[in-house]
């Protein structure tokens, strides 16, 4: 039903002169129509809004009865860009006389006399009144409406005016989002909405990590994406240029209509539609270059050799030939970062054709994006083709939204992260050299050699040349609907959605090795194909009835979704190699062949949904929402969950007693409800114990594999929904004729029955992943604040917005983990009751031992020397439990990977034809575990930081310990992985995007028959202010519990781009 009302709302924008009083009244409550035509302050000291509404209704009633008139006036209404604005309502003030502008913005009407006033109004623009003053031509330029209150908000199966919202819903402007060069929608909205935490990566074609209002689950923080009514992932295969609006449903009331899948929030994406009028062709083109804005500052081969010589000598050992005086070859000086990194590029082209009539419209768009990443061998491209259409016949409206995309990613083999290797690989190793040629390394790729240049780092250039993984995703996402308006107050809608994807991955491996002493590897090819199909069928009834001061509207419906994935894979070794090239098909290979296949996913979800909104005098609003969801992924006893919510809002500014002229609007809302979380990694049958028949035992004289079978993975038949109880209190306000608007929300949510891959002890002999258990509960509390100031009254128009969020995350319960165990371990983190998820649990460092006496006198209460193996220059640790030994028992909570404050700010300004926009993101008060630095600063088998300052008796004022080899226990202890030596404060402020635009002058364009065109240059991630020593403080982490681990995170690139958009 969502699209139907949304569409109706759109229609009224184009044609406000709706011929039905009833409908007008109906729409008054659910769409911008009704109130919008006249609900505009006539001056800055407008009276109470309630009166304005009454006025608006009377106007509309009058408008329904047209009258005869005298003075002929014509003119053109344009928007802020000078483009003709169709569908603008032009009314002679105080009469029922009016007209609507045509496609080019032209209008003509007859006014009763030359001294009256014309009122120009259009959704999204400030209403303007112009005294006729006996003119016959009146051209008007409408300014965009500063106030967001009249926005229509899609809330799932329904649209409402933002002012009537009772739940916490954010709207993100696609204009803002699209300024950012992004892989995915999620990445593009970083910093734009409070409470939405986005962390992005520089891997081409990779989805960003997104969390809405903290973490409520240990396994899944992804919000539910609804694209034009189809529940489908908005991953990088979706073209962000097609997006018309983005709504983020944050609290229980807003999201409850999506029930069991909504607790991580819901992002509703609506794509663009054609507008009434002749065909319009829009285009945009963007070219950008991208690079890593920061690299590791590492030693070159001479510096490396000097340091390693010292290292060996201080350990009393002979330096290896690669660095020893006399044998060190200064001609080998490989900068592995130079070898691995490149200047990436990005090209993005879009063409959109659109148009329509009163009863139908269409939009066709084509786009192509290609991104060559900043690491060699990594790229992504996407071609997309969209057709959206609507047609109406009588009471029936049909429509469809459909996108076909074809995406490709390419990268070297998985299981390889160049962020480590390009840093740790030794500069004394050449990229390629005949001396490395062996039967297993025919390419002579430079790798570690014993006993000379020992390292286990991969040669990243060899990896790139010897392996490739190419994936192709051919995908269709779309929906079709039919809707029937039975009465003006009741509409039925049938919506069928489909996502079908044909995925293909080809893995190629040539003969050769890329690592010291690696086993020989035969050349091979792997082909994996998969077919994904998700079908959604929904029947909804929307109703809307106003009786006197009472308005009641809502939706009831049934939703069914069925998702399947089938896979087939094959591989074969020994590629044919002839004429200097490999043949990359399975049939051309000659070695051992294998085949796999299965149905990894097959599940159904059935939901009954309903929402009722009741409003009294536009002042008191209450919403009940509920959804009953059943999911085949749970056992029949636990399959069905009910997810209700209730919300209320009070528009204080509508009250008669509230008479504060400078407050334009003030609304208080409160909500409470329960939502569910689906963990996609559960698979389709997580509650059942299965027999694994993969084991193979070898028997017999001819050594034949025999099938073995047993239950490999522990199962939990009591698996059930995760749920999240959410409370929200919000205040929306706007002041000074809506020039200032504020949103303030306080929320408190408690997730229950959070599913854990419960770490089971090794003595249970479990395999295939830890079993899923509902065991934890997590609370998230926070404050969200957003403010905007707009100034559109002068030629220099500008607005500035800022938002900030605090999230306090706390584990409340982890179930029965055994005696006195109230935490869950993941790597170096513990999620312990009373603390946030994934808090660092580490041994604390206490500086560096300066003297042997200091080592000897560092004793526990019984006089035991705590670090007897240490020497001056070694790291001193805190013996927390006082047992005289430094070990895992001395770990404690040291700091949090959770930011204390996250903020975003945007500035948009325009002066005549110039525009400037700036986006800033700031994240404060959290720590990151710098694992790449751990590798580098261990001094073992790795390159060194150029600015490393190892402790010596002459260099005591340093935090870097002495040089040495790990054959020395003191050195080994310096590199304890579970110490806070690798933690860093990662607070940062980043200039996320700066864009400067210029709208080409009209005379110049008209010769080229172009309506409007704009060119822009933008710079992304121009500056990052941070004390973090890694490449990028905005890390996505290893998993939810290890959100602050920089395990070779690919930094967000710096992007410079140049683009043009326009329309003809």
């Amino acid at each position: 039903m969502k699209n139907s009302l949304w569409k109706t709302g759109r229609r009224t924008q184009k044609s406000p002169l709706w011929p039905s009083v009833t409908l007008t009244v109906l729409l008054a409550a659910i769409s911008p129509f009704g109130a919008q035509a006249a609900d505009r302050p006539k001056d800055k000291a407008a009276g109470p809004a309630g009166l304005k509404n009454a006025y608006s209704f009377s106007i509309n009633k009058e408008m329904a009865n047209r009258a005869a008139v005298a003075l002929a006036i014509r003119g053109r209404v344009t928007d802020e860009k000078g483009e003709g604005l169709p569908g603008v309502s032009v009314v002679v003030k105080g009469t029922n006389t009016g007209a609507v502008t045509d496609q080019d913005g032209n209008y003509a009407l007859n006014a009763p006399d030359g001294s009256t006033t014309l009122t120009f109004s259009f959704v999204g623009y400030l209403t303007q009144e112009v005294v006729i003053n006996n003119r016959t031509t009146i051209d008007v330029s409408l300014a965009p409406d500063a106030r967001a209150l009249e926005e229509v908000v899609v809330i799932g199966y329904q649209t409402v005016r933002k002012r009537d919202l009772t739940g916490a819903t954010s709207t993100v402007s696609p204009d803002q989002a699209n300024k950012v060069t992004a892989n995915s929608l999620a990445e593009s909205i970083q910093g734009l909405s409070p409470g939405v935490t986005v962390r992005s990566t520089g891997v081409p074609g990779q989805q960003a990590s997104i969390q809405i209002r903290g973490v409520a689950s240990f396994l899944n923080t992804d919000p539910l994406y609804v694209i034009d009514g189809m529940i489908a992932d908005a991953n990088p295969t979706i073209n962000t240029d097609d997006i018309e609006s983005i709504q983020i449903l944050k609290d229980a009331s807003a999201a409850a209509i999506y029930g069991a899948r909504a607790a991580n929030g819901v992002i509703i994406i609506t794509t663009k539609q054609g507008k009434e009028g002749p065909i319009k062709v829009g285009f945009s083109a963007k070219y950008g270059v991208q690079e890593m804005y920061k690299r590791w500052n590492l030693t070159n081969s001479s510096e490396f050799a000097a340091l390693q010589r010292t290292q060996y000598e201080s350990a009393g050992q002979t330096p290896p030939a690669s660095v020893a005086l006399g044998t060190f070859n200064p001609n080998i000086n490989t900068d592995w970062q130079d070898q691995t990194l490149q200047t990436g590029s990005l090209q993005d082209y879009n063409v959109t054709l659109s148009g329509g009539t009163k009863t139908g419209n269409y939009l066709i768009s084509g786009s192509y994006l290609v991104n060559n990443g900043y690491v060699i061998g990594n790229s992504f491209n996407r071609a997309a083709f969209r057709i959206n259409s609507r047609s109406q016949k009588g009471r029936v409206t049909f429509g469809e939204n459909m996108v076909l995309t074809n995406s490709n990613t390419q990268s070297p083999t998985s299981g390889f992260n160049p962020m480590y290797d390009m840093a740790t690989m030794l500069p004394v190793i050449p990229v390629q050299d005949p001396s490395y040629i062996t039967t297993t390394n025919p390419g002579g790729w430079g790798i570690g050699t014993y006993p000379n240049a020992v390292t286990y780092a991969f040669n990243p250039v060899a990896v790139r040349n010897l392996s490739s993984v190419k994936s192709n995703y051919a995908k269709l996402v779309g929906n079709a609907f039919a809707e029937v308006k039975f009465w003006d107050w009741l509409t039925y809608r049938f919506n069928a959605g489909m996502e079908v994807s044909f995925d293909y991955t080809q893995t190629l491996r040539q003969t050769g090795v890329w690592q010291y002493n690696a086993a020989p590897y035969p050349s091979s090819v792997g082909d994996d194909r998969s077919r994904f199909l998700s079908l959604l069928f929904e029947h909804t009834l929307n109703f809307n009835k106003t009786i006197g001061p009472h308005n009641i509207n809502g939706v009831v419906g049934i939703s069914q979704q069925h998702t399947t994935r089938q896979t087939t894979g094959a591989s074969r070794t020994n590629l044919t190699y002839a004429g200097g090239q490999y043949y990359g098909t399975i049939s051309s290979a000659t070695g051992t062949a294998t085949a796999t296949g299965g149905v990894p996913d097959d599940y159904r979800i059935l939901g009954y949904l309903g929402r009722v909104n009741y409003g009294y005098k536009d002042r008191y609003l209450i919403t009940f929402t509920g959804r009953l969801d059943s999911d085949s992924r749970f056992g029949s006893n636990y399959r069905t969950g009910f997810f209700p919510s209730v919300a209320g809002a009070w528009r204080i500014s509508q009250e008669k007693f509230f008479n504060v002229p400078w407050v334009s609007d003030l609304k208080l809302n409160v909500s409470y409800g329960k939502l569910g979380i689906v963990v996609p990694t559960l698979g389709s049958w997580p509650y059942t114990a299965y027999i694994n028949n993969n084991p193979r035992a070898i028997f017999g004289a001819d050594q034949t594999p025999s099938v073995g079978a047993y239950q490999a993975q522990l199962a939990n038949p009591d698996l059930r929904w995760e749920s999240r109880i959410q409370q929200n209190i919000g205040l929306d306000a706007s002041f000074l004729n809506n020039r200032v608007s504020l949103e303030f929300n306080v929320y408190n949510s408690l997730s229950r029955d959070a599913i854990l891959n419960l770490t089971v002890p090794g003595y249970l002999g479990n395999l295939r992943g830890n079993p899923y258990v509902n065991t934890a509960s997590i609370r998230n509390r926070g404050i969200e604040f957003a403010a905007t100031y707009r100034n559109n009254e002068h030629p220099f128009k500008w607005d500035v917005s800022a938002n900030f969020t605090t999230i306090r995350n706390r584990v409340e319960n982890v179930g029965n983990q055994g005696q006195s165990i109230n935490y869950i371990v993941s790597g170096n983190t513990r999620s312990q009751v009373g603390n946030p998820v994934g808090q660092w649990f580490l041994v604390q460092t206490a500086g560096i031992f300066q003297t042997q006496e200091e080592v000897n006198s560092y004793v526990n209460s019984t006089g035991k020397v705590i670090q007897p193996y240490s020497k001056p220059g070694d790291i001193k640790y805190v013996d927390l439990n006082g047992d005289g030994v430094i070990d895992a028992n001395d770990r404690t909570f040291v700091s949090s990977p959770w930011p204390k404050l996250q903020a975003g700010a945007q500035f948009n300004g325009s002066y005549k034809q110039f525009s400037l926009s700036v986006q800033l993101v700031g994240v404060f008060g959290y720590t990151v575990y710098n694992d790449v630095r751990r590798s580098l600063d261990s001094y073992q088998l790795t390159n060194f930081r150029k600015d490393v300052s190892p402790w010596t008796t002459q260099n005591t004022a340093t935090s870097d310990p002495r040089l040495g080899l790990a054959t020395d226990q003191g050195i080994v202890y310096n590199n304890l992985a579970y110490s806070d030596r690798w933690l860093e404060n990662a607070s940062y402020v980043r200039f996320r995007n700066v864009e400067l635009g210029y709208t080409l002058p009209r005379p110049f364009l008209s010769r080229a028959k172009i309506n409007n065109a704009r060119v822009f240059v933008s710079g992304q991630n121009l500056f990052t202010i941070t004390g973090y020593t890694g490449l990028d403080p905005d890390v996505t982490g290893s998993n939810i519990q290890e959100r602050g681990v920089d395990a070779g995170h690919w930094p967000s690139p710096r992007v410079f781009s140049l683009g043009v958009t326009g329309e003809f």
Partner: protein
Amino acid sequence: MKKILISSVLAVALVMGGCKDNLDIENPNQVTTETYWKTDADALAGVNATYSTLHRGSISRWMFFYYIIRSDEGWSQSPATDIVNNMDQFIITDYNYGNAYGVWNDNYIGVNRANQVIDNVPNIQMDETLKQRYLGEAKFMRALYYYHLVTLFGNVPLVLRTPVVGDKPASATQAEVWAQIVKDLTEAAAVLPNSYPSTDLGRATRGAAYALLAKAYMQQQKYTEALQPLQWLVEGDGKSVYDLMPNYRDNFLITTENNRESIFEWQFEQNPAETTDDDTETPNQNYGSSLPQFFGPSGIGWSDGEARRWVTREFTEPTTTGARDPRLAASFLYDSTNVKGPDSTLIYGQTFTQRYGRNNQRVWFRKFQNDHWKNEEGYRSPNNYRSIRYADVLLMYAECLNQTGSTAQAYPYVDRVRQRAGLASLSAAKPGLTQAQFLEQLKHERLLELSGEGHRWNDLARWGDLGPQLTGRDPGFANFVKGKHELLPIPQQERDLNPNLAQNPGY
């Protein structure tokens, strides 16, 4: 009209939406545990899974670092210092050290598989003899895994049933674990066949159960109890099943696998297309051993583990024809594998000199390497690991006889082993040894016969010889603390998850 339309649409909507029964979706990929364990084929596959464990990565690779490299016969010069510290030098940097955890986990995976057979197979309607054999095999395998666990980790939890989420057993004492091993092996020996048809070679036999039972008793210094199963092997029915191979080296070649000398042999085969060591991930798994890659000489394999040179110097006694003990060349790759020296010694197709020059003192283990048929190693060695050989059993029997006061009666069994190597009989070379002298001689005999086969650590443990006094042979033992380093620490993660587990002494 409208009402009819609305009602009919609503009716359609309800019908289309209301099909609740289709939420039961069968998994087309896998059989559930409820439908499994019904036929003898199910039972057989269950038993097979217990053996499949033996080629998992940690048990077939890292476990031998603890039995071989950690002992005084081996050491590590790996650039991966975690291996050197944790697996050779008694510097335990991390109680969750991944390779130790892998060994722990793989053995318990084997225990889990055996437990499932022991729990489910009794309820299957099938041939009773076959059923008992399957149960016997599972009990043997469970005992084998606990044998590894008790000798490496000591006081480990005893899990004897199909595990359930939340099981939190307490630590068992070593005596309790040994008792369970003895019980399982005694029951297994009663039902296992003396031998199998050629298609089933590699399965546990009665002889294997007796041999392992004897080892279990001996590690507890229960030499009298060990005598009985050994007698079955040496003097009883086993005598007609087993014998020494005439050629010592036949015990280490891929061409002479599952020979008469082999009492229990881990079966490996090469799967060139494998993608993983995890035998539950895909049937396309590695059922070879990666140990030869890790023990492979520099330039061939990782060389993460190698032999101590002092061992090569123990082969001083010439054969009766005056030649060098042939077991030296069969056991080690070093500059004198060929008695003529580095220029004549072939290391995987090249002379030692070509590869390392003449003055390289490194020694690599040779026994389960593949240099006898190819010039490279890899992760997929098909060469079977002879876990218990008849020569070992003969020496065990001799040791038990000696320990129980029958030193004179012990001579002939040592003689058989020595004579196969071409040495003079001990009765001729060193007659009339005292009990203590004979034990010292046995230690020497076992070293020469069984070096690099994974028995050294347990031999030293049984003899009480683990200690810093070994530092001369193996400097790593300088770090050895008696009463502590005989055992590995119980992985910290297990103790985090189950506070009922005690840490081993000294950790």
